[in-house]
């Protein structure tokens, strides 16, 4: 039949340039290319950039925003947004600090993560069950979280923290510092979950077309809430690692984290309308963000200019993505 013949040939690109295009049709490849270009430019500009010490430093700096960005990816894939991650990190940090006054480290960490998950459940349930705007609900939770962090901490830093907490960050496993290992393990888990489990595929389907997902029998409500729970819990993990690293907990901790996390996810190619984005893309987005910060520091650029640089990169990244991505997906 004619219909079959017509479009059969168009979907099989031939020749080197076509193959090149096919490879570049993958978003991660494009973003990885951007990251490499950035790395080369920075290494040319600053001889220190490629030193092992600095590279390890880069990984270390990626941990907190990287972990939060995983949860943010889940949320953004469903078409939502979580503005509360920074203040949830602040609040759960304070909860960790207070718990450590009474309990041992494992229990305290578990409490912090559980409270992060509970806050996520609260936001997610409101958003999914009552069909409220994610932006507004998480904005509200953001304000509440920060306010509670101040109240619980008594407006001061908590400093009497058992120094053993430090081990969560500075233990070396297989030659890798444990906080970096945590980051990598979490990314591997998230990658496997999103790509190869029923839940992961459902999150994509819900974000891409909620109505169709419901009609196909997928549990839209559950998988609309789950990402916020993941996001809340991972904010607490990030808060735990920050506290462990500096052995001091400030109610202000995590301020602005939401913007870095959202930026990383967006640079990584996720669509804020949901349904499109990958966890590998997010990881590359995190590296790009951290590299820019690091590079600007190495080059001695004023910290006041860094915001402009990062903002510019975000805008350039989404613009490039829109212009380069296959037409049918727009």
């Amino acid at each position: 039949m004619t219909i079959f013949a017509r479009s059969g040939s168009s979907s099989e690109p031939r020749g080197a340039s076509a193959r090149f295009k096919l490879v570049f049709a993958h978003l991660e490849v494009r973003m990885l290319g951007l990251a490499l270009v950035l790395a080369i430019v920075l290494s040319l500009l600053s001889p220190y950039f490629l030193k092992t010490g600095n590279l390890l430093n880069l990984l270390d700096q990626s941990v907190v925003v990287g972990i939060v960005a995983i949860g943010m990816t889940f949320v953004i894939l469903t078409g939502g947004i979580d503005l509360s991650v920074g203040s949830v990190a602040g609040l759960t940090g304070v909860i960790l600090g207070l718990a450590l006054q009474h309990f041992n480290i494992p229990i305290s960490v578990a409490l912090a993560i559980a409270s992060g998950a509970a806050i996520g459940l609260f936001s997610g349930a409101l958003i999914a069950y009552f069909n409220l705007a994610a932006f507004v609900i998480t904005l509200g939770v953001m304000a509440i979280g920060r306010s509670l962090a101040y109240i619980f901490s008594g407006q001061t830093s908590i400093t009497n923290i058992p120094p053993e907490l430090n081990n969560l960050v500075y233990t070396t496993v297989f030659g890798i510092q444990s906080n970096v290992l945590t980051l990598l393990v979490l990314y591997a888990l998230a990658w496997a979950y999103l790509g190869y489990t029923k839940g992961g595929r459902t999150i994509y389907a819900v974000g891409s077309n909620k109505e169709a997902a419901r009609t196909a029998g997928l549990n839209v409500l559950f998988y609309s809430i789950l990402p916020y729970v993941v996001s809340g819990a991972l904010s607490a993990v990030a808060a735990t690692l920050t506290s462990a690293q500096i052995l001091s907990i400030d109610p202000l901790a995590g301020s602005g984290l939401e913007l870095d996390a959202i930026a990383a996810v967006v640079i990584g190619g996720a669509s804020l309308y949901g349904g499109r984005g990958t966890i590998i893309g997010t990881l590359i987005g995190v590296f790009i963000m951290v590299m820019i910060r690091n590079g600007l520091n190495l080059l001695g650029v004023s910290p006041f200019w860094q915001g402009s640089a990062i903002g510019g990169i975000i805008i350039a990244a989404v613009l490039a993505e829109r212009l380069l991505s296959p037409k049918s997906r727009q």
Partner: protein
Amino acid sequence: MTETGAPLLEARDVTKSFAGTKALAGADLTLAVGEVHGLLGANGAGKSTLSRVISGHVRRDGGSVLYAGVSLDLKSPREALNSGIAMVMQETSLARDLSVTENIFLPALGRPGRLSHKLMRRRAEQILTELGQDQSLPLGAEVRELSAAQRQLVEIAKALALNANLIIFDEPTASLSPGEVERLFDVITRLKASGCAVAFVSHRLEEVFAITDRLTVLREGRTVAGSVETRSLNQTELIRLMVGRDIGAIYSTHRATPPSRGTPILSVRDLKSPPLVRDVSFDLHAGEILGLGGLVGAGRSETLEAIFGLRQRTGGLVQLEGKRFSPRAPSEAIRAGIGFVAEDRRRQSIVPDLSVKENLLLGYLGAHRGFALGYGRMEQKIAALAARLDLPAHRIAGESLLNFSGGMQQKIIIARWLLLEPKVMLLDEPTKGVDIGTRSSIYAILREIAAAGTAIVVVSSEFEELIGLTDRVIVISDGQSIANVASAHLDEEKLTLLAAPRSSMERNQRLLSKLAKDYDGAAFWAILDESRMFCLNAVAANSLADPNFTAGATPRFEETRIGAALSSRSREFIVDPSSGLKSLVVDVKSHRGHELGTVGLVLDPSSHPPEAMAVRDAIVEQFRAMV
């Protein structure tokens, strides 16, 4: 205004593609001043796209459009309105939160200057009076409160308010009752007389023959017959033009052996799911293809959704294989063996960001329990199914479903459910936006799975398709199942009259009641064919005169108590030899000469019948005035 017959709009060789699919591949259309021009074609032939090009909703890729002798290159519907082109949209484009008046003058809101609400109201009243809706359509009501038919009428009023020179009606009658259609035709006749050019797009051939002067037929995006005199064609010739072959090739004849009876696989009793589903009952047997017929907005889609667990039920009993079945979510229905192809593919079926294969596997994913995916296990099944459905492997491996033609998309969506080997398949408008070639292969697939024992329910607004494809049709009107008829006994006209909304029957009901009361007997309205009656409405004032059938019943003449009168069709009262009932049957027509079936008066055996002639004249007169 130019003189009647002069071309107002000439479209030549218009082309338009959507995402690589050609919707128009060289369409021509000439509309003359003072004519009603039918634009016909099978589903997916490009009628709507051509209409939307002319009305400025989509921009053409190629070809030319001359309007009043000047080249027309519209960039927006607003420009079309400014040049006097209006369109009544198929899918209503109303603002749900605004009032009827505001909606009628919605296009005026886009113009600079101040609006006079008083003037708007007066003009709106005038238009609705022309449409015969001044009593039933409250001007102040919000559009969200209106029924589908009322919305359609507001949409029509909106186009009339523009005083356009060219009006395109895109399937304006899909949710209207016959009476409302008559009023619309009156309005169209007046528009024509005032020098307006009217394009009329419809699936309903009898309407096309009733109202249009000339027709243009599109097939697969091309004009295959341009500006043919309507009178010069008969229905068979027209269908052949539309589909390019005899219709028999598409709807193969009804199966000689109807599926075996026994316990129904799905039994629905008094199903309620407000606001649209009010009281629906039917039985579905294994291997059967059942149609739900009715007008748009009658509650057919919602019935399917309520069965499938997508819509809350408030009453009624559904049994699947004899067991009570009330899924709270589609996943329960899917696991119980039900598949559902929803009406709006883009909105309810396609997940654009997942690959074609994952789209194919989406129903499986919904039914699947467990943490892992288990896609691997499905590979063989997919390959087998693809071979059966004629789905090439490279299409399944495709990146996005959106790049496919409507027909190919629909095949994938149907395959999504067939993969689960359902016991019951529910399909809502399965050939909407599907090209003619793929349509016949979809029919073949449905017949094949029915033959293998799957029970199928099809909703279709194309009555011809519904009758041609199904074994039996349940007619749904205003959310109630009112008739259960073997498809072999139906034709489009009977189905149209049966499907008329009960609400529009009010005047008819009053008329029959008065008739029954005046003569102390029973009155009915029905369609009669050679050996069978299709009762549209029946009222008995005297229980002794009850002919023993109710609205929706379709008995053979000899099964009623007035068989003799029905088969003789005499102009006099006929006494039935077995029941003794005395009855008179009178054929009725609308004031436009449209045949509207037969009205009967039944008197009890002991009564003295009045003079037949006088009664007949009174009935004919009252019926003519009714619509």
